[in-house]
């Protein structure tokens, strides 16, 4: 478990070529299941992994977070201190994370459904705002999943993946950048 959770490329490798290190992920014949790991990023730079939390402090407080995408809602438990990006990936929620939490890509963009919850969040830093500028389908309550950390006040927060409302207005997006 420890190995396959956050072991660099390990868990995502479902390759057929005899590959360099890290191929300890079980080779699975079930392509569909393994594919869902594709868009998964690794842990954000600044946080310890959930694995560590579980082992050292199993009593760590958890909050519930609801994700909404085009397949509907998904309720998950997120340990306090974990980033939303990390939590999404732990729970097979397809939130992109091209820069793996470095605040350099904007693909982890989520929309906070409820203004009340949005106001509970700390204001975005200049760096987060700079990336939000480029997020596809930006709204008033948009944030970057990799910069959002679970805190007790956020218990019950509902986050929408922009894919849920995406309408392929790529040209508009291209112009905006």
């Amino acid at each position, binding site marked *: 478990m420890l190995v396959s959770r956050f072991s660099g490329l390990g868990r995502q490798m*479902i390759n057929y070529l005899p590959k360099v290190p890290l191929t300890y992920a079980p080779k699975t014949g079930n392509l569909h299941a393994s*594919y869902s790991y594709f868009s998964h990023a690794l842990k954000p730079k600044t946080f310890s992994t959930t694995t560590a939390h579980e082992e050292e402090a199993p009593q760590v407080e958890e909050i519930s977070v609801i994700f909404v995408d085009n397949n509907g809602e998904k309720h998950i438990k997120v340990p306090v201190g974990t980033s939303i990006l990390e939590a999404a990936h732990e729970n097979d929620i397809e939130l992109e994370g091209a820069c793996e939490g470095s605040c350099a*890509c904007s693909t982890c963009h989520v929309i906070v459904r409820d203004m009340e919850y949005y106001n509970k969040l700390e204001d975005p830093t200049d760096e987060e705002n700079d990336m939000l*500028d480029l997020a596809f389908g930006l709204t008033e309550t948009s944030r970057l999943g990799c910069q959002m950390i679970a805190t007790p006040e956020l218990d019950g927060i509902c986050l929408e993946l922009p894919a849920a409302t995406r309408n392929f207005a790529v040209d508009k997006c291209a112009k905006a950048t």
Partner: protein
Amino acid sequence: MAVFKARAWLSRAFSTVASHPLRVCVVGSGPAGFYTAEKMLKAHQEAQVDIIDRLPTPFGLVRSGVAPDHPETKIVVNQFTRVAQHERCSFFGNVTLGSSVTLPELREMYDVVVLSYGAESDRVLGIPGEDLSGIYAAREFVWWYNGHPNCRYLNPDLKSSDTAVIFGQGNVALDVARILLRPTTELATTDIASHALSALEKSSIRKVYLIGRRGPAQAACTAKELREILGIKDLHVHIKEADLLKTPADEEEMKNNRIRKRVYELLSKSVTSRPLHPSSDPRELHFVFFRKPNKFLESDERTGHVSGVRLEKTKLIGINPGEQMAVGTGQFEDLDCGIVLKSIGYKSIPVDGLPFDNQKGVVPNDRGRVLSDTSGDHTRLEKGLYVCGWLKRGPTGIIATNLFCAEETVASISEDLKQGIVTSSSSSSGREGLLQLLDNRNVRVVPFSRWEKMDSQERELGNLKDKPREKLTTWEELEKALEE
């Protein structure tokens, strides 16, 4: 030879996967190509995706465009690597569409062909003197410092004067300016090509002029890049206060544009910024607004070499609500410089047999479906042929934009498959056909496993110099790496 063995092995492994796969070829391994492959593999369990690239190295502009001091941006190659390692995906480097294989050949062999080969040429200014030496397209300069083999020997002239002029104020212009101005001690620990690092160490450029034909409310860059260049150590930033005056039309333009607003604010704040300490090696960055290039001036001492630019003052006129355009005022001024970088936009190149809109520099398409005839009421579709990325939309947008672009193209493919417009045909020879054809033509295919070896080699070389990687930058070095 290892490369060919790998090929034989690949086709063996492949033949065991599915009897009637949907054969998909993606041309170009930049973000658009990799995101398309990822989405296709995911949406179609029967899809076999082959990605070809003209270079032996994958990742397009993530390797050869993204600045060396932006390592976080390049992390996305981890995701692309996982795509390439997927068992229904293959990467074949060193295969050029148009010379190794033609478009009609590819379309014959594959059920679906997606072109995502980017924009590897440049817009031109079309003013006198543009072919003087010392004038480069930003694309060439970027390829040079990023170790693209096509510009390894560009040798830009960084020593004949202390002044560089850059036309354009987009993010590429800012990247280029930053590379010219940033202390080389800071660049030394990046993956910048070593030939570029040593040239920059000897560079006499101390002043960079970033010239925009419009004003600070229209600057094309984004806040992130601007904040970064304004933060360069010991940099003296010059902006004329008068240029910052906003007209009602500017206000209107910025009102609904968060990026423009934030860029304008950053520029206004920097008017008063001065380096904290007087520096022993002062460097200046001048933002020049409302000036468009009129002609390049030739040096008296060095025939054929640029010695300056003639600029025409501009004013803005409204063309649409919230949109203003620069027009000349007939007032001119000259600016001396030893090097000019034109950063006014990239441009795609057509290949034989591909409908192409020369005006816009893109392939005419309907949500990614290539259109052969857009005249009249009747638009004709090129069955099974699609586009994605800069070739589809034109040369704008960040890496993430190509993700949405790929989603759109793949949605079109899926729709066409559903409607039977495209089918997986038993007669398409796909990967075997392609590899056979390339073998007959003595094209030396570079599979992903080969790239991974080159990748480790580059990292090891980098390790010796405290760099994340030392890129192989000449065709000879790349060839040699393939022999090993």
